[in-house]
């Protein structure tokens, strides 16, 4: 069943077979990456542009590496968002990209819906690399891949997503993906960091780490941005760490074999204790980064098949 979309803008609405197909393909690339047997000419002659309106070294590098391993020509464009008329920049950029005959466009933007807006204007296949507080689809794919490799499945697992869910596109994409694949999802955080009507998404909402982590197979921590503290949503970093920061004591509430995840970059001592983050027995944070390249290779591969058909 070929992937029916031109772009990857969101996980929400993606049917289970396509998620499974992406994960299977990513698994294949993960293995090939480890063996060094990647087919290096799949995207030969294709142009991939990393268009980043927000700084993100790791996501950009991950896409860059994924594209290079498949043989694409890659250009990184960082666009300053400090210019007064951001929108003009966005649509002007679209026109420029069309003129350059871009095939694959990876977009990171601080505004929800910006990649969708761009997708209406460009000829390229658009991959959302994180938009505002909306979605970060490839992060959810790499997280699911990591979980599946460790736990053998997604279905029936209990995943606790903890911390600043309100502002997290990672949380939203993960919620949609995990629920679609029949996992149980809990979100855990202070009420000021839980989005309105979150339960309507199909998740369980917890405000205490003890109940939230109890019996969890996966503990996924989110980054708490410093601005959230200045915005008054939580009173202080030390209070947040005391009640919502993951340390060994809190992790003990989860299943004994529960894995610990974090999309990075981590605020050590705010949402996660170094002792947990660096514990090779529990933490899969390093593996997430590795799976990121494989998941992005799968996305580029799949979307480029549609390009080829349309060409």
């Amino acid at each position: 069943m070929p992937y029916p979309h031109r772009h990857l803008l969101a996980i929400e609405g993606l049917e289970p077979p396509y998620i499974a197909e992406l994960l299977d393909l990513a698994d294949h690339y993960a293995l090939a990456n480890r063996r060094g047997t990647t087919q290096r000419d799949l995207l030969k002659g294709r142009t991939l542009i990393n268009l980043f309106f927000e700084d993100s070294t790791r996501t950009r590098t991950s896409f860059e590496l994924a594209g290079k391993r498949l043989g694409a020509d890659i250009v990184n464009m960082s666009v300053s968002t400090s210019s007064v008329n951001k929108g003009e920049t966005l649509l002007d950029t679209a026109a420029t990209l069309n003129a350059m005959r871009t095939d694959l466009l990876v977009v990171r933007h601080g505004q929800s819906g910006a990649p969708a807006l761009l997708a209406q204007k460009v000829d390229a296949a658009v991959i959302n690399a994180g938009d505002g507080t909306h979605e970060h689809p490839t992060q959810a794919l790499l997280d699911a891949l990591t979980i599946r490799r460790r736990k053998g499945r997604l279905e029936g697992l209990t995943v606790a997503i903890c911390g600043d869910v309100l502002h997290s596109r990672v949380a939203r994409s993960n919620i949609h993906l995990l629920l679609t694949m029949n996992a149980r999802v809990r979100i855990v955080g202070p009420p000021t960091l839980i989005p309105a009507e979150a339960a309507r998404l199909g998740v369980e909402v917890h405000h205490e780490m003890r109940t939230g982590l109890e019996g969890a197979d996966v503990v996924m921590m989110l980054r708490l941005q410093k601005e959230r503290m200045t915005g008054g949503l939580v009173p202080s970093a030390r209070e947040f760490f005391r009640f919502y920061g993951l340390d060994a004591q809190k992790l003990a509430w989860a299943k004994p074999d529960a894995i610990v995840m974090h999309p990075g970059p981590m605020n050590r001592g705010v949402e996660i204790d170094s002792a947990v983050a660096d514990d090779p027995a529990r933490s899969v944070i390093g593996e997430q980064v590795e799976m990121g390249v494989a998941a992005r290779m799968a996305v580029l591969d799949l979307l480029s098949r549609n390009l080829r058909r349309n060409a």
Partner: protein
Amino acid sequence: MTRERVYNRRMGDLLITDVRLLDPATGLDAPGELLVRDGLILDHGASLGRPDGATVVAGGGACLAPGLVDLRAALGEPGAEHRETIASAAQAAAAGGITTLCALPDTDPPLDDPALIQFVIRRGEATGCVTILPYGAATAGCAGKEMSEFGLLREAGAIAFTDGARAIGSARTMRLALSYARAFGSFVVQHPEEPSLAAGGAATEGERATRMGLPGIPRAAEAMMIARDIALARITKGHVHFAHVSTAEALDLIRAAKAEGLKVTCDTAPPYFDLNETAIGEYRTYAKLSPPLRDEADRLAVIAALKDGTIDAIASDHQPRDADDKRLPFAQAEAGGAGLATLLGVTLARVHGGDLTLLAGLDLLSAKPAKLLGIEGGTLRKGAPADLVLFHPERGWRVEAGRLPGKAQNTPFDGRALEGKVLGTWKAGRQVFAA
């Protein structure tokens, strides 16, 4: 003065024949014809004869009603002429059957000076097709701090006082404004939204905003501002009018305040009884409004409040925006929708839907707002200004952004099929629009 200038010009008589006469002010709904002399309605009835030299317009059985009185429209002028000018808004108003229009003062510069009020009135007169009644800024610069010169602004022609699309956030300022406006028999119009809760918001807080990753505005931001201002109306005995009310909770508060006998009135705008928040799906910025579109339960509550009289008027809440304001990521795009050309058609959808009678719908669009403002118009009574709209209640058309009259094309109703088409509009007996 205005009246003399507009109405007492000599011209031949006008006879509009073969129409369904609809006067919400008197309850008249009968076939007949209507005679205009010197810009005023001279007579109407089943058969009026043919005065010498009269221009005869055959109505073809269409509806003839008082020209619409729009309580709330932003005009773009002065200061944002790239979005709309008074001339282009007047063109859109005429095409929408609107003959009197209250202009919001949060322009650039804001209408907080008598000279600016007179300027806008004169610019309206110059269009020849619509009477523009500007609101005076309630506070200097619409900045929400010091009260503006209500007395001097009123003398210059300000119809009432408001800060437009900006809420008067300070309770003390609102108290003083409500109290002071009484001295001039005027009222204060509030954009009812608690600013500290609405700041940065792009959609109604809830499941949809959560899924779309948009900063939300809680529905309670409207109700709590209305509750506060009702309390202030109680202690000041002043008249507060709430614009574009959109939530069930707020309407319940207004209903109770009216029952208590307080001087509290309100309007709503067509998007709030015709659309719900699903219209913003796929980040459609043309459906980004202020207040934001609500859920279906609120939409139904607005309709119920139109039916039971809690809502006093339907206003266009015309907010012109250009492509650069709207072709942006949703949270960065400007809120506001064009509303002049669709005011009648979308209201008639509620008539066709069985929620309102035709007369009740027209009442909310003309007689009631005219009464609220204390102006002539909104009626076909003999001696009233011949501000008229001729429309076919069933004739269909499709709203299309890019093909609307006037400059602003940012309609939240893009693609909506409407039944009810304006065929002609007359201002003081002079035809200013013909379909």
